[in-house]
């Protein structure tokens, strides 16, 4: 693990409570660092650097700042897709989708240096991913979403429940999640929720994060 004092795997269910993905296009002119600082102040427990366009050099510069901000608050720092970037940043975790590098190959490169998250498109792939060593799963889109153009049809909380029953690693719901519907996602069996626009595009990022975190914590305390 990158930080010898933290066993991220053990802490994962707590670190997945409020997982925020960066998205420059949705951030209304605010920098990644500004958004992430506010999100963490409001209660974000994981931050994913999602770098879809722009140079790698800039990704490294911003990533180093985000990693430092996360480390100060014991927040899980995740890099999307690029294992080379994740390693260069000494990230705590890399997150892969089904078109990214395969899980077994990814594990071969990162070994025990970092966790690996995976977004399985189907229930079968969720089960396979656990067997191939994924540390957690991102399952979605739970509700309709406009943040990811390639996200596919909404799958509903029923799929969260089905995946939660089928695997023993923690899962996080993603896609169209708001303060109003987060409770149902957690009650269906998710450790937490992953969001993009409901936080990074909010008028008040910190407040939006606090509201969502409160909803998640409430649902975790009082399972349906």
């Amino acid at each position, binding site marked *: 693990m990158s930080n010898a004092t933290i066993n991220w795997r053990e802490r994962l269910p707590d670190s997945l409570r409020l997982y925020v993905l960066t998205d420059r296009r949705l951030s209304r002119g605010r920098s990644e660092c500004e958004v992430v600082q506010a999100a963490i102040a409001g209660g974000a427990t994981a931050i994913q650097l999602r770098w879809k366009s722009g140079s790698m050099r800039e990704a490294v510069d911003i990533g180093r700042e985000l990693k430092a901000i996360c480390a100060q608050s014991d927040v899980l720092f995740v890099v999307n897709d690029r294992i080379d970037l994740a390693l*260069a940043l000494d990230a705590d975790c890399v997150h892969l989708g089904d078109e990214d590098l395969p899980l077994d*190959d990814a594990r071969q490169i990162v070994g025990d240096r970092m966790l690996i998250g995976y977004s399985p498109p189907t229930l079968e792939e969720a089960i396979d991913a656990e067997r191939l060593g994924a540390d957690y799963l991102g399952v979605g889109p739970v509700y309709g979403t406009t943040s990811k153009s390639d996200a596919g049809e909404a799958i509903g909380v029923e799929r969260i429940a089905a995946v939660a029953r089928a695997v023993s690693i923690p899962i996080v719901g993603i896609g169209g999640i708001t303060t109003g519907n987060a409770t149902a996602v957690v009650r269906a069996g998710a450790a937490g929720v992953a969001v993009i626009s409901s936080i990074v595009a909010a008028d008040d990022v910190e407040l939006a994060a606090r509201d969502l975190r409160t909803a998640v914590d409430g649902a975790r305390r009082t399972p349906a």
Partner: protein
Amino acid sequence: MNRSAIPRLHLISDRQLCDLRAFSTVAARAVAGGADAVHLREKAIAAGELLAAARGLRSAMGDAAMFINDRVDVALLSEANGVQLGESGLSVADVRTLGDGRLLIGRSVHDVEGARGAAEDGADFVIAGHVFETASKAEQAGRGPRFIASIAAACSLPIIAIGGITPERVEEVIAAGAHGVAVISGILNADDPACAAARYAEALAKK
């Protein structure tokens, strides 16, 4: 880095001219004709597909050096010999660490400043261009062999010239200070990639 360790005839992929499935076969033919490096440079495809293509290429192209553009993770998993970095790619220092010192590192440069930077950062070679006008960069005029001479004066790294280079023009870019040449359409558009590569290799062997 010993200059003789740097390949001199580089073939670079371009899906617009040759799709990835056909590319392994074309690359193998080019290697048979004398290409000693093949670059997979495909920016718009997902990493999973890129890795599959790189593994296919690796097994098709024998001992020639394989370079992956930009993605060090794919390079490591496909047993590439090196990576080719754009001017805004990962830093040479980061790539050295990631590759545990085993990867050759090329940097693509477009001006003297970029070439100086690549040398200061410790790259193993530069691909400099483009030298002549080319369909793949139609909006930019070629800068001629003098451009290569200006790079050579500013940086001691081996220079691989790119951009509109035909076998007939190899001699003048080598005379201007290039160590070798990189080719896209000159091989990918040829009826016989092995024959086309052989003509470049012969021109390179003259000097």
